[in-house]
């Protein structure tokens, strides 16, 4: 018995000792608030979750810590922002720059005029010397995020005076300004007076961060689950002041956890903005919380992201060389079934290789509708018009019995929310196309011209709507006689980059969103960047598609100014080429179910007032803060 008592006593002491280190955590960088006034605080979900290196704020070094903790939204700044939607006063924001980049005639030099009267959060004035330091430091330090960009492209950078920076480039580049243009990230300017004294910048944590944004770090969880930012007293000495005073005194970014917990936290008033939910989670929160709403007031609620989930064919695989085959595979797909399987009908479909978001519907989708409707495809046996301009109206009809008045009834509204149209499923035409390509039928299975079964794999991620999309695509193909093996790959991004796949569900198109220029993704599609089979493919064009007409378009974009109207014409040429060749099958926008609660704040962006992307991990979301108003609760 004495042994047992001793054991119990030991266990008790051990438990107490084991618990002790919990209390010996590192303290946050700044003293925490004792009472955060909720009605002056905006709380947002950080989609990065828990940050494993919470005290790391050196955003110029890779994999160092969290970014969407408020660090790049509230604390950083650079020359320009471009919104994926319409912007408060136009899509482009002049932030640290006073106007657009000024290039010489052959795009080998770029001059930027800087905004005077902008101060770092520690009171030091921001000048051109900070910019020069930013470029030179990274160009000279391999391993920093923008080292490659600067060392490969910049010949010299100089401060002409305190408010003028002049770049000389190693080669003509009409888009060098985009290095400093935030779509949701860009080359952030470093505080020279902090970093010039740092011996090893790669191991410097930059804690607490000194920034150019209107907020400073107040405190953070040493376990990485929350960050509190406080509005600077001199917020009017930041570039953002031109667009108004940010309303919240405090902004908190926190780990929202799994979908269920995000819903509960918002319902309980502990989250004002949720970055993203599952479709089911979105439908649930609007029922559970009358203050919660999405981008569209009703179904499908989601904000179409400027990315375009597609069926990507590996063009270094001989099975996908023939345009007839690619088109046949497209016509085997049932758009309605795909929409229901992936997004429960809340998809924004896209027949063209431009995501239906921001200004793209008016730039591209609506203007292309007539051309698409009249587009003819020669199957070798007949000529068909494969585009169905009313397919999305049918999807709205399918979900209306369940969601009632939340589903729009006006065709224009339906097309805005569900997409303009898509390809009709046409198995007969697909049969003609494959036959024209030399394929034959054996029972229900297709046989390739070389006598082997038409079989390939479709790589999809492990979960999410993209997984569901891929599953339905594979099912459609299998029903049509194509032997498709679905590969669920946890390392799908690595496989994609190395070209180790037959076909793949992901996106290789990702645009600015609010601007018709396509350089954001298109330049990396040039044939000069296509890697040999098995070698890692740099930056998109994961389909490894090469086409002389594509190269011509890209080369012309390279010598056309960003705001030149010719860009839209070149974009339309790209879209038509993509339809004719079908190198990827564009399916839909990546719809993000961002949720905003109006319990404490109103004035969020929406489809009716699309002044900003509502997804709160984007750096552009900083401008939302200037439009918010207290709800009075």
């Amino acid at each position, binding site marked *: 018995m004495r*042994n*047992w008592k001793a054991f119990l006593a030991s*266990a008790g002491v051990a438990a107490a000792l*084991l*618990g*002790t*280190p*919990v*209390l010996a*955590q590192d*303290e*946050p960088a700044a*003293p*925490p*608030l*004792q*009472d*955060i006034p909720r009605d002056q605080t905006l709380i947002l979900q950080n989609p990065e*979750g*828990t940050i*494993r*290196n919470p005290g790391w704020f050196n955003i110029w*070094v*890779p*994999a*160092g*810590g969290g970014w969407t903790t408020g660090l790049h939204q509230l604390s950083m700044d650079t020359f320009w922002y471009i919104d994926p939607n319409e912007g408060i006063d136009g899509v482009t924001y002049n932030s640290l720059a006073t106007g657009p980049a000024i290039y010489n005639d052959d795009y080998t030099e770029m001059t930027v005029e800087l905004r005077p009267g902008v101060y770092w959060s520690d009171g030091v004035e921001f000048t051109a010397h900070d910019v020069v330091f930013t470029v030179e430091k990274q160009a000279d330090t*391999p*391993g920093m*995020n923008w*080292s*490659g*960009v600067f060392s*490969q492209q910049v010949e010299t950078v100089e401060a002409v005076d305190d408010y003028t920076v002049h770049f000389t480039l190693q080669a003509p580049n009409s888009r060098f300004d985009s290095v400093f243009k935030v*779509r*949701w*990230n860009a080359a952030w300017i470093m505080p020279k007076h902090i970093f010039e004294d740092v011996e090893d910048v*790669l191991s410097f944590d930059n804690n607490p961060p000194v920034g150019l944004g209107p907020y400073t770090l107040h405190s953070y969880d*040493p*376990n990485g689950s*929350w960050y509190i930012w406080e509005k600077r007293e001199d917020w009017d000495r930041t570039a953002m002041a031109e667009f108004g005073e940010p309303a919240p005194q405090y902004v908190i970014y926190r*780990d929202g*956890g*799994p979908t269920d*917990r995000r819903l*509960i*936290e918002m*319902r*309980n008033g502990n989250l004002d903005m949720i970055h993203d939910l599952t479709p089911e989670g979105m439908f649930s929160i609007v029922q559970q919380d009358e203050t919660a709403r999405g981008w569209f007031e009703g179904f499908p609620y989601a904000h179409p992201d400027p990315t375009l989930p597609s069926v990507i064919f590996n063009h270094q695989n001989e099975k996908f060389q023939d345009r007839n085959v690619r088109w046949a595979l497209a016509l085997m797909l049932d758009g309605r079934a795909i929409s229901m399987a992936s997004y429960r009908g809340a998809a924004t479909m896209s027949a063209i290789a431009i995501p239906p978001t921001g200004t793209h519907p008016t730039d591209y989708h609506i203007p292309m509708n007539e051309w698409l409707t009249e587009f003819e495809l020669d199957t070798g046996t007949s000529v068909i018009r494969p585009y169905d301009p009313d397919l999305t109206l049918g999807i709205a009809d399918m979900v209306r019995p369940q969601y009632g008045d939340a589903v729009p009834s006006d065709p224009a509204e339906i097309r805005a929310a569900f997409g303009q149209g898509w390809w009709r499923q046409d198995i007969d035409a697909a049969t003609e196309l494959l036959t024209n390509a030399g394929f034959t039928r054996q029972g229900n299975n297709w046989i390739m011209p070389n006598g082997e079964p038409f079989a390939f794999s479709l790589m999809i991620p492990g979960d999410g709507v993209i997984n569901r999309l891929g599953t339905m695509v594979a099912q459609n193909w299998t029903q049509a006689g194509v032997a498709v093996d679905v590969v669920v790959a*946890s*390392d799908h*991004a*690595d*496989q994609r*980059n190395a070209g180790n796949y037959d076909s793949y569900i992901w996106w290789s198109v990702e645009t600015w969103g609010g601007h018709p220029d396509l350089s954001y993704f298109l330049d*990396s599609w040039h044939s000069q*960047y296509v890697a040999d089979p098995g070698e*890692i493919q*740099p*930056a998109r064009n994961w389909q490894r598609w090469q086409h002389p007409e594509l190269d011509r378009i890209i080369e012309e974009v390279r010598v056309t100014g960003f705001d030149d109207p010719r860009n839209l014409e070149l974009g339309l040429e790209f879209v038509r080429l993509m339809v004719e060749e079908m190198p990827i099958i564009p399916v839909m926008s990546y719809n993000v179910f961002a949720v905003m609660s109006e319990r404490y704040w109103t004035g969020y962006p929406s489809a009716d007032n699309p002044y900003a992307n509502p997804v709160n991990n984007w750096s552009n979301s900083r401008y939302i803060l200037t439009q918010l108003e207290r709800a009075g609760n």
Partner: protein
Amino acid sequence: MQNYLLFVTKRAVQLLAVIFFGVSAAFLITHLSPINPVEQAINRITGRSNFSPEAVADMRAALTALYGIEEPLWSKFINFWRRIVVLDLGPSLIAFPTPATTLVMRALPWTVGLLATAVVFTWLIGNILGGLAGYYQNNRVLKGVGIVAMGLQPIPYYIVAFILLIVFGFVWPVLPISGGFAMNVRPGWNWPFIGSVLSHAILPALSLVLVGLGTWFLGMRALVSNIISEDYVTYAELAGVNKRTIVASYVIRNAAVPQLTALAMTLGAIFSGTVITEEVFSYPGLGSLLIAAVNAGDYALVLAVATVAITAVAGAIFIVDLLHPILDPRITVE
């Protein structure tokens, strides 16, 4: 005594061998993972902006050198063991350049402090109640506890976690459902912080306690039910020994030996077994750290967690082995 020392020495050698092979296996398995941490980092960074292909190639070369992953496997293996000896597992890749051991030491107290304490507490209560229920088989209260235990026991702990989340976070929102402590308190030896830690620990601990209690209760009750029919118990009863003494000294003590072994195994497995609980409640322990490390292909961090887990399991079994001859009079060391 000499026999016992020999026994300890043999077991200690076994312990070291188990740790060596276990950690080596973890090393090999981790390095067979198809996830490339350099590509993960590049995807994270370039996914956010328009890097030129040349810039990406430069970044790839720089990161490969920085992470030190270009070494051949055998060289990595030798260096890995060299570093283990000095307790340095290299930098974590998801929190570069923070050492992996720093992250583990930051998470370890949460897992051990809350979850291990919860398991030990559950073990004690479950066994005591189970022992009493096995001996006093007609007691109505203990019968009721048995029914509840049987109901809870087959439910996976993560289902219980979600139920608790819904009940105390949504239906009756009285308890915090996320993190280790509240946002507005200062970590340290102060009551607001201690109170906050305790309140945040209730739901994750309860999810383990509710299920664990049933498991230990039912196991102990079954053991005691068998033991009370043993001759020595019958003899003690006939000899008029006090019932409390019989229960505490003869019955529960003998039945506790296998339960103690099971406890050691459970404590070891807690490092990976409570991953989902930690994920559900965003509890800042080793489980959620492990998930993040695996998803990012962070070899160093996965190995740091695995090394701690393997050492803990092997160490716990080692301690139990040493305790057996002391606790159980029926076991002698030859």
